[in-house]
């Protein structure tokens, strides 16, 4: 009986892998199964990379999370696994419209601000958000975070690396959340209620602000956050 059970399980596994690797002309796309657990996904990827020898070596992949949302710590576990096994870089993460799942798993442990952490970050691909972040959205990225759209008041972008906004930044942005003081915040226009870099917090000055030229950068200079219009 047990034998039959295990056979059945195997058959099911063969039908539905916990993560599918799709190939198209732009490269590889990883689509995790909506019900698969992280351990299954990691084990399966491990096996696939092992079997295919160097086929996936140093390739770039897209992670499609529209059917199975993953928490940031799960994404970083998968990143690390792929990079360690065959230097696969995840270059893009596709997210569904609802970003509420990012609110779960807030088990981000603060990382020590060391040079090692900085180098780690460079190996990680940035988290790309392809829509406007409205009030109530909270995005946590273990690396840089790129937002293609506005960040409205009430939204929060927290990244261990830089925060880059192709639009107006009006919500809260926290760059270098792990303590990286060289992190910067880039936006076409910075008019937030609060910006944070590493352990520093700044509020925008009262009153009207001159319009930005092309874009603005916030960085730490002499121990204070400065916003420079470029």
């Amino acid at each position, binding site marked *: 009986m047990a034998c039959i059970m295990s056979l059945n399980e195997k058959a099911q596994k063969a039908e539905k892998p916990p993560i599918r690797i799709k190939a198209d002309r732009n490269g590889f796309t990883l689509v995790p199964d909506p019900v698969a657990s992280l351990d299954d996904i990691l084990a399966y990827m491990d096996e696939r990379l092992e079997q295919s020898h160097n086929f996936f070596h140093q390739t770039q992949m897209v992670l499609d999370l529209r059917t199975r949302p993953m928490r940031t710590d799960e994404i970083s576990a998968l990143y690390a696994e792929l990079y360690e096994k065959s230097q696969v870089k995840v270059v893009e993460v596709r997210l569904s*419209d609802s970003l509420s799942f990012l609110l779960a798993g807030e088990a981000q442990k603060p990382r020590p601000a060391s040079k090692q952490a900085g180098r780690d970050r460079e190996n990680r691909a940035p988290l790309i958000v392809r829509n*406007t972040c*409205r*009030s109530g959205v909270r995005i946590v990225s273990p690396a840089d975070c790129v937002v293609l759209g506005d960040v409205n008041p*009430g939204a929060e972008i927290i990244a261990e690396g830089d925060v880059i906004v192709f639009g107006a930044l*009006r919500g809260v942005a926290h760059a270098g959340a792990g303590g990286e003081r060289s992190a910067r915040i880039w936006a076409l226009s910075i008019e937030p209620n609060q910006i944070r870099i590493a352990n520093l917090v700044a509020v925008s000055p009262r009153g009207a602000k001159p319009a930005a030229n092309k874009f603005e950068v916030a960085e730490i200079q002499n121990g204070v956050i400065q916003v420079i219009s470029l």
Partner: protein
Amino acid sequence: MAGKTIVVTSGKGGVGKTTTVANLGTSLAKKKYGVVMVDTDIGLRNLDVVMGLENRIVYNLVDIIEGKCRKEQAMIRDRKLPNLFMIPAAQTREKTSVTPQQIKELCSNLAKEYDYVLIDCPAGIEQGFKNAIAGADAALVVTTPEVSAIRDADRVIGLLEAAMIRQISLIINRLNAKMVKKGDMMSTQDIISLLSVPLLGVVPESDEVVVSTNRGVPLVHNAGSKAGAAFRNMAARLNGEGLAPYGHESRGLFGRMKRLFWN
């Protein structure tokens, strides 16, 4: 016949959702469309008062859903327009007495028989909001030119997008043109650039709104009212009638002459 189901929502309370539903519903009914307005604000119903129909309520939304009556029994016909109906909310129950699935079924049944189903959504983003948006295929987000209302509208738009409601339009209520000119109030452009959803119309601030609410007669019945005209224009745009987009309908002699030439 498949009608359109539209939810009117805002997040913040007191910005004019119920007034909007009453006036848009009445305007559309005046154009001879079959319209049903559904009040989903269970426990805090208001639409019946605004429509002046509070003394005719026998059955309500929860009775339909619990199968205590047929939906025709709970639908109250308007005093003036025979093709305008309202389903009142229950006053003595709670938001949890209905589920989003049940509202969805009711709305799809209503949409088979009527041209427009307008849903009045409760304030907030909890259970009542989820119930109200479940059956909708389009949404109207009402906001006033205040930072708090706009923040809530932004949040609500995010939630609507997450609920796969693609057709979202904005209504700006209680705009005071004088204050905008002086720079004391956010302008229409400011609000649109922040919320980035298409604008359906702007309602000027007016004392007539309070009077019409207290009398229980929607403002659109009053031909001379500017706010009423704004609601009539919105109903026309909602109906897909080719009206100049907002901003071209400038007032004054010059504006009127320009409009005359345009047409």
